[in-house]
């Protein structure tokens, strides 16, 4: 059992948009844990689909997946990535040839993989905190 007075506040990682996450989840860290975990799962599966669409040369299909992935970064406090995804979505809307979006695609793939590492770490921290205090 913990003493309520000794309870420390959870601090989100500085790599994330801390004030935005505090505004989004408030004191509901169980919701934050749940959303972080499911966002990571969905990002992983959408990234695999995006890779398949890119390799198939299906740019409209790729655009749809990028659109779907975009808000997921918001839920995990990586808002800057949302604008990078919005720009790539625009790029996909304007081109037909897969070669034209290759560098853009490689970039969003790399960004997503880095984001996944951050979100996995943060999910573990949230889980640990919630187990300890809730």
């Amino acid at each position, binding site marked *: 059992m913990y003493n309520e007075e000794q309870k420390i506040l959870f601090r989100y990682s500085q790599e994330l948009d801390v004030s935005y996450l505090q505004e*989004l989840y408030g004191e*509901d860290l169980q919701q934050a844990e749940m*959303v972080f975990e*499911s966002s990571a799962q969905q990002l992983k599966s959408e990234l695999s689909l995006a890779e398949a669409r890119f390799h198939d040369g299906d740019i409209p299909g790729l655009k749809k997946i990028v659109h*779907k992935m975009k*808000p*997921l970064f918001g*839920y995990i406090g990586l808002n800057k990535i949302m604008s990078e995804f919005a720009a790539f979505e625009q790029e996909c809307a304007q081109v037909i040839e897969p070669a034209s979006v290759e560098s853009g695609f490689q970039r969003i793939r790399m960004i997503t993989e880095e984001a996944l590492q951050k979100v996995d770490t943060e999910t573990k921290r949230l889980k640990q905190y919630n187990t300890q205090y809730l």
Partner: protein
Amino acid sequence: MKIQSIIVEDLQVAADFLKRFCEKCAVVDVAHHFLNAEDALIYLKDNVVDLIFLDVEMPGVSGFDLLDQLLYTPQVILTTSKTEYAYNAFQYNVTDYLKKPFTYQRFLEAIQKVSKKSEQQNGNSEQDHLFIKSDGKLIRLHNDEILFIESMGDYVKFITPAKKYITHNTIKNLETKVNPQVFMKVHRSYIVNFTKINDIQENVLFINGNMIPISKTHKSGVMQKINII
């Protein structure tokens, strides 16, 4: 009374996030979550809701296509990650527009708008009449003309001493639209004009020779409303 809603959203995370807010605010019930608009349309053919949380860009039928195909107009809160749809949202007269992800505070503001709009709509039911669409025209019926309203699946029948009018609607929807000072639901298939009741025997009431059942659920409400001396 809670706001009955559905979520139409292809992003599971966004739907779960929204469901949590609905639970937290305790005034919105989420009846279902649909991952696509096609399934939502099938549900909405047979079910009436007060509010739809609607994503715009989904595979297949879009959120706006769904609104085009609806046979009635519940309130709509658009949930999207793009701001470009604001003009369309205005054209479709949606109640609010939430950009994903949104905060709890912003969600509450949207729900307040829904409640305010509902109050305005209910305020209209304080009038002494209503308009129904029947035989291709809008017919004005005074409350005093209507004896009772009977369900016929996706249609309802308005019974007046002179005529019966059939219109596309449901008892559940009408329950919130008619003037509660005059009308009351007595059974899942019947709304009656209280001033027209001739007599009540056990679980049945009579209006102009028509026998109308009173369900167990509504019996106490009926007994509270009538003036027993």
